[in-house]
């Protein structure tokens, strides 16, 4: 009998309910349960508004859950938020950099504020500057950098304190193809280093390429969870896009070949695959 590795992220019946003036109570996250392990890229796949970002915000303790529980590296997100945040790095399109700091100052700040051992900060900053090829512009102000340079600094600041768990929430939104590919490459490297990575996206090709296991989220619920092969086997579909639609149709009670749409049913979400959305790394369909 082999030892099962201990999960780095445990989510159990996690819920988040908002009150919206026009819609009343909205169950943004409705009883999610999953676990993630070291060296794994765990993908959360869902349309916009499916509850992915809310889930990740709860895991990063930006939001408080209204029900259920979750822990990161054994720290409860409700009772030990600082310890949780110290154990993870959070990257998303909405987490910008301080424009008036230099690239080096930015990395230095995030290394220190996240509790990296003080005596090792300089070496860590130098290591990250070297790793991401930032040295040429390390003393340049962030607001003067190109978007590609900013992206590198952003990734460097996310992993500055060497956290065991990393959250990437729609990390390629707004990036051009080259930068999106660079992002995918970095995620693979981090996985190889044994990091646990929660990767949220609505871009099928990225999820197909990167994720060891995929959780399909729709209307705050986890519709399916497993490796790509597991999901293919369970649905009889080959392309992830079709797998995704299969589960969503099932959840919506839509029979056979009926179209899901006009996506209003997915809370105005958009699911992209096979390179259908311009400017995104949606590349080629899965073979």
């Amino acid at each position: 009998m082999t030892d099962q590795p201990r999960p780095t992220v445990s989510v159990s019946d996690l819920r988040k309910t908002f009150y919206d003036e026009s819609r009343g109570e909205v169950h943004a996250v409705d009883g999610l349960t999953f676990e993630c392990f070291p060296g794994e890229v765990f993908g959360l796949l869902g349309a916009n508004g499916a509850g992915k970002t809310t889930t990740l915000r709860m895991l990063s303790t930006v939001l408080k859950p209204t029900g259920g529980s979750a822990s990161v590296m054994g720290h409860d997100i409700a009772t030990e938020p600082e310890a949780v945040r110290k154990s993870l790095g959070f990257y998303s399109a909405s987490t910008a950099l301080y424009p008036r700091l230099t690239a080096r100052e930015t990395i230095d700040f995030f290394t220190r504020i996240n509790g990296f051992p003080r005596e090792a900060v300089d070496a860590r900053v130098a290591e990250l500057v070297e790793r991401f090829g930032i040295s040429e512009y390390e003393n340049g102000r962030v607001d003067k950098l190109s978007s590609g340079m900013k992206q590198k600094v952003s990734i460097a600041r996310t992993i500055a304190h060497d956290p065991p768990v990393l959250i990437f929430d729609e990390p390629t939104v707004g990036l051009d193809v080259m930068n999106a590919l660079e992002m995918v490459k970095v995620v693979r490297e981090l996985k190889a280093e044994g990091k646990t990575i929660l990767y949220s996206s609505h871009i099928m090709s990225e999820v197909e390429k990167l994720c060891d296991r995929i959780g399909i989220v729709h209307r705050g619920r986890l519709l399916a969870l497993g490796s790509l092969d597991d999901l293919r086997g369970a649905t009889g579909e080959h392309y992830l896009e079709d797998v995704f639609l299969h589960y969503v149709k099932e959840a919506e009670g839509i029979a056979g070949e009926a179209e899901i749409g006009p996506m209003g049913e997915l809370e105005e979400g958009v699911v992209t695959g096979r390179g259908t959305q311009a400017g995104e790394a949606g590349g080629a369909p899965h073979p």
Partner: protein
Amino acid sequence: MNWSQIGILYRRELRSALRERTIVVNGILIPIFMYPIMLWAMFTGLTFVQGINEGFVSRVAVQSPPPPAHAAVLDSLRARDDVEVSGAEGEDGDWLQLLADGELDAVVSFRSLPGDALPDNFSVDVHYDRAEERSRRAESRIRRIVSDYRTAWVTSEAESRSLTEADRTVFAVTGENVSTSEDIGQLLLGQMLSFFLVIMVALGCFVPSIDTTAGERERSTWETLMTVSASRTSIVTAKYLYVASLGIVAGLLNVAAMMVSMGAVVRPLLAGTDDAITFTIPWLAAPVMLAGAIALALFFSAAMMILAAFARSFKDGQAMITPVYWLVFIPILLGDQTDVNLSLGSALIPIGNVTMMIRDAIGGVFLWEWIAVTLLFTLSLVAVLLLLARQILKFEDFLLGAFDGSFWRFAKEKLFA
């Protein structure tokens, strides 16, 4: 609360701030240079205008001459270099129309008083235009000339009757100013420094409070900050201390710059005049000013940050705080009431109390019990604002910027719903 993290966050805020032109200009350059330059320009301008006014020759017409026995008064008028008597007395002329048209500065009528106990007695009517500076000056010159003539005439008449000045005066009122040039300097400094200190502390807090709240949202760095391992309390404390410290620095830099400029600019301008002033401040006033600046900075920072935190952009933040900034001017005017000292009642007027406390201290008046009440009351207000901020921070829609509205709407819909 982790003070090490607060230190890291504070340094990050400060480093960013010192690279922002608006903050450097408002918090450092204006306090140091703006008001001393303004003061210098004001005094120089006043002196210049005064010189121009004094150089004016008053154009005066005499509508009717004095009685012949007092013709000398007219000679005195004519003898002056700064008075030009246009037209001869008794000549026809529409003098009042010329005065109204600005062609003349004053029209003088010597009017005999027939039947008066004193033979050849007369009165002088001066027509002038009060709306015109040079006309007011002409009236003043004529009044002085007539007054000097009267004094000389009365003295001469008294001497001819062997009356001494004491006989003639019988009793006299003399005034003696017991205040020293230092006292007057302290009065002026008390009014000016207390006013500018409060304004500068508020101005020093103004831009940083917006930059660290609304600016953070506008730049999308708010969520980045929410995901670092520092606690919310540490993050907010660092931001608060950063805003307050810039307010204190702005206030104290302004005081130092004003002191230097008063000595270097105003004193030389007044030297040699009757208004010679010595600018000194009692040593004990320094800690009172510092305590006042700190209390005010804590108050302004808390109030401005709470309001600006609801803004989505720097521009919105400015719109939300600007009315509060202007409101500050109302209680400050209490500092101008030099005959009202700090008391229990005035110690409970926010901002006005600190203004009066600083003004009194500069003037050497230390009412310690009311100083204590002032500081305690201001710090109590700060505590109330911090408790309010703590309540607001509990709302996630506020934290994530999902709430769309001002503080007042938030208070109505969420806090006191």
